[in-house]
């Protein structure tokens, strides 16, 4: 099930196993048959830790989704609520407990808070008068969830918003806790680097927690050599740009949640000979995306322009393999062929799926966009043109062309009432690339947005200003060009087919965050002091003492391992760029990536909006 987690440089399956063990221990605390009532949000992340079979082994007989009203009847001894510590969920639980049928044989109630208990929630239950009904209240410390062999995420959606808008650093506390867990499993990380306010906080908390646990020395040989903590607000630009890797585009267009993507079903209908065209399924096709799938691991990080070639190459290999059957003459040979069949079938269906997905992405080209006024009419401008125009404008901004003027493309998009998030993404990008907008330009955009989308969006605009995505240009000069040139953020000749630089992930733009990571490994941050000073927040270095005897003796040519932690989220394209660095022969460094949330420009801006749900048009 989770074998792909152990293929990487660091065996992340250890973490998963620890999490599974914890879960079993909790389940065994509640003796007898059980039913679990799930906070629906949790089923996705939990799915990455355990299957139903594990729960079943521990006498979980039924599972329900948390809903107000009465609990469905189930002949079990225990009812366990798996919930996030949220007040509104406590009210639902209280309702459930109250409406429990007293006539029925009494059932025991338990709560498992994920990832932490909350005194406020317990207080709420007490106020509602149900706290005493719970035999067991516990917490399940699921901070970092392994997503892939080199990727961990907390899936803490509101982390960036809380840190920068609400000044609530709870997510940083959880981050530090998560890092302590990692260190307990993989050894103390001797070197910590960081850039940004939040990075500083996390490092401080980690050092403090280490002092508090000073009693027990960690005797594990360190797996990670370095930890790099990066604030998302050090690099606000990268997530705003449209990701151009295969995985990045899937996420941009369809959205990947908990490693799954939902796709329009038409292209996946299985055509079978002799069967008249079956009714097409209307339910979206759900696919799991991770490195357990050989083909996906191969193409996920490629620039989309190189995916077609890779797929057709793969098709050649597979069909050649199938052709082998003609050469199978002896019984032995046939047996050999047949034994390979399952693998070939899997490869074939994987190829079919990804060919369909690649087609879907290409197809975005022929669908139409919509005119937002009362009637809905098909537009002439095809989505592919829109996509291309959008990319052109992004690239102009990133190369610093006309960033100080009102952009006509943005203006036209507003006039057409394109989705607000798209507008906000572009305007923010222009602002970031110009180190703030001139008063006149900023006022103009704000007016246009408020008049077209509604005045209540003052709140959203205000949020973006607080987060630094939109800002007024201060008297100081625009330093983005300096940053761009020093860090080589724009590469004219990005090679999409056979990349030689990380800039291929955005077809020219090299993500700032990953450049910082790259420079840290070689030649070191001292070479870019000037630029680091221009970026927000302090940069720092800390060392953690290792007990004697745990110092690694490095073999000649052995790669070092760095854990890069993105505080506030990371995009798939950035992950692709880091994987590219790991694979470069002469880099000498392998990267494991951790984050508070996997995001893209759209989900990120959405998390910063005020009441985004009222903004579905």
């Amino acid at each position, binding site marked *: 099930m989770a074998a792909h987690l152990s293929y990487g440089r660091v065996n992340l399956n*250890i973490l998963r196993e*620890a*999490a599974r*063990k*914890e879960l079993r*221990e909790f389940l065994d605390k509640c003796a007898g048959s059980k039913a679990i009532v799930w906070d629906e949000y949790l089923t*996705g992340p939990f*799915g990455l830790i355990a*299957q*139903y*079979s594990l729960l079943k082994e521990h006498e979980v*007989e*039924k*599972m*329900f*989704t948390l809903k107000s009203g009465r609990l*469905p*009847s189930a*002949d079990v001894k225990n009812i366990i609520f798996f919930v996030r510590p949220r*007040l*509104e969920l406590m009210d639902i639980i209280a309702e459930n407990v109250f409406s429990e049928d007293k006539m029925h044989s009494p059932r025991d109630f338990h709560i498992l808070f994920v990832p*932490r208990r909350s005194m*406020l929630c317990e*207080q709420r239950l007490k106020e509602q008068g149900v706290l005493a009904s719970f035999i067991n209240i*516990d*917490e399940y410390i699921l901070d970092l969830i392994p997503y892939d062999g080199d990727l961990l995420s907390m899936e803490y959606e509101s982390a960036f918003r809380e840190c920068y808008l609400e000044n609530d*650093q*709870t997510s940083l*506390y959880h981050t530090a806790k998560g890092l302590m867990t990692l260190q*307990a*499993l993989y050894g103390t990380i001797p070197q910590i680097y960081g850039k940004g306010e939040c990075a500083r906080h996390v490092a401080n908390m980690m050092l403090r927690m280490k002092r508090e646990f000073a009693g*027990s020395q960690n005797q594990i040989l360190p797996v990670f050599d370095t930890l790099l903590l990066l604030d998302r607000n050090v690099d606000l630009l990268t997530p705003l740009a449209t990701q151009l890797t295969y995985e990045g585009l899937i996420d941009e267009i369809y959205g990947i949640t908990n490693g799954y993507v939902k796709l329009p079903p038409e292209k996946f209908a299985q055509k079978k*000979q002799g069967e008249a065209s079956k009714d097409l399924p209307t*339910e979206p*096709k759900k*696919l*799991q995306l991770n490195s357990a799938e050989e083909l996906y691991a191969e193409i996920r990080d490629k620039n989309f322009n190189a995916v077609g*070639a890779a797929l*057709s190459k793969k*098709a050649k290999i597979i069909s050649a393999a199938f*052709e082998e*059957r*003609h050469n199978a003459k002896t019984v032995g040979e046939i047996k050999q062929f047949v034994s390979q069949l*399952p693998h070939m*079938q899997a490869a074939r269906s994987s*190829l*079919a799926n990804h*060919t369909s997905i690649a*087609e879907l992405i*290409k197809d975005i080209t022929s669908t139409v966009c919509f005119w937002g*006024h009362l009637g809905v009419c098909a*537009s*002439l401008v095809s989505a592919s043109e829109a996509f291309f125009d959008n990319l052109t404008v992004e690239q102009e901004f990133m190369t610093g062309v006309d960033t100080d003027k009102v952009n006509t493309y943005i203006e036209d998009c507003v*006039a057409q009432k394109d989705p607000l998030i798209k507008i906000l993404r572009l305007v923010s990008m222009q602002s970031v690339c110009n180190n703030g907008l001139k008063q006149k330009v900023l006022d103009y955009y*704000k007016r246009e947005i408020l*008049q077209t*989308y509604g*005045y209540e969006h*003052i709140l959203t605009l*205000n949020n973006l200003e607080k987060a630094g995505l939109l800002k007024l240009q201060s008297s100081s000069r625009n330093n983005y060009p300096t940053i761009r040139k020093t860090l080589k953020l724009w590469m004219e000749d990005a090679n999409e087919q056979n990349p030689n630089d990380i800039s291929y992930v955005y077809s020219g733009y090299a993500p700032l965050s990953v450049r910082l990571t790259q420079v840290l490994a070689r030649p070191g941050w001292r070479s870019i002091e000037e630029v680091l000073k221009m970026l927000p927040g302090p940069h720092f270095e800390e060392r953690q003492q290792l007990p004697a005897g745990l110092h690694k003796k490095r073999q000649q040519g052995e790669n070092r391992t760095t854990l890069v932690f993105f505080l506030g989220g990371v995009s798939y394209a950035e992950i692709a760029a880091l994987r590219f660095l790991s694979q470069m022969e002469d880099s000498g460094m392998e990267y494991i990536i951790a984050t508070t949330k996997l995001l893209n420009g759209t989900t990120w801006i959405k998390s910063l909006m005020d009441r985004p749900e009222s903004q579905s048009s």
Partner: protein
Amino acid sequence: MMKNKADEEDYWNSSKFKAFTFDDEDDEFSRLKESKRAVNSIRPLVDEDDDEEEVEKVSWSGEPVGSISWSVNETAASNQRTDREPAFPKINTDTTSISKSHSGYSLSALFKGETHRCILGKDNTLSGDWSPEETVQRMQQGKAVSLEKFRSLQDKLLLLDYAVSAHDGNVITAPLWDLFVFPEVLFRELTDRQTALRHFIHYLTESKDQRLLLELLRYLPLSTPGLPLLQYKEHLGIADENKRRDFLKSCLSLPFSPEDSVHVEDHYTLLERQIIIEATDGHAERGGKQEIFQKFPRKASILNMPLITTLYYCCFYHYTESEGTYSSPLNIRQTFKLSEKQFFVTALAARAKLKAWPDVDALFTSRNWLGFTRKKSPLSFQRVVDVLHKNSAPTQVLQDYVALVDDAELRITLAQKHKCHDIVINTYRDLKDRQQLLGYRAKMARGSAEERKINELLNNSVRKKILSVSLPVCLSVCLCVCLSVCLPVCLSVCLPVSLTC
């Protein structure tokens, strides 16, 4: 497997698919097609619906059978069917051997703290003599604490300050809640503690304690950053439009930044106006007197719509009203200081939707000082054509505007898209592109007027010569006249002449 017998024979002996004889061209799309074709041509040897032991089962929705969310749905469904039988899905067990090994660490065992913990409360008999710092630490570690001993306000605040420095929201809110007994004191102290204040506001918002939140907002000094907007935000929760308007009016006096205060004022003015328009139009619609409401019934109320939508609505239903009324588009343009471009696009879309082509035409008409009319637009004519097309304007209307696109290339593309054949033909003629004309003729229907026109152009080589001579001559004559008379006259008179000859 029986049914597949013949198929199988067939499969093993034939190679129906031509495997991969593609050129090495770099066209991505054709590559995708090829791999698609290849995939489809490889027929499964085994019916894929037959389960194979070692392959993980996946339901159509892609959820691996046996995954948690799948099982939640499954039990939910089975529960509807029967309430008794615990319906276990047939699950394949975890195949990895590691999962069986129950050794290794569990997460909580990593930090050997007490796992038992009591919650806060007055009845807590736990007494330890912990300093505020230790208390916060114990709270963070999930150990039992009692806040009882922090009796004096001073102590409570000290505890709060330590909690804030721990950055753990959970811990910060606890002493806050303990201070709750004296709201006035709490509010006063919070104004000096911005972080704690924000946590408290967040807590109140989350627990939906509107009353206390508003009380708190009223208490805080107006200079608190972000406060006016926080108060403004409250309007979103008011459903009744009149109450919402009054609330917005009360917001006008709040100390917003200069820019924001303009927007909030506009918001108030807009809603006030929408309420009036909604009342009047609702009445008119029910009365059945005004034709427009009968012909195009209103789809939704205009209340709380954005400004531009409101303008669109007014351009749709109230286009000809004089500037004096609230619903007049001109009045709206004035009041909210809309730019020419915004007004133009919206009016254009609204009138085109109604197919009021004379109105559309009039939007472009401007007269110069000699009284000649010209078509002018603050928008590129390409965008104009776009807007008109979206509102399904007929070709006759579209071609007038396509003809006004300056760039010949773009004009041809647009004309082809919208089937304005005359414009395509004329443009090729002016470009003297015989090849293109020939090519275009092939696309026209046999015997159509367009085909005849092209034939005429192609055959009449004499005319063609004249054409190529006449244009420069005509222009040079124009220029001479221009020098003596005046430029606008010359252009508007001569150009149409030279184009038609």
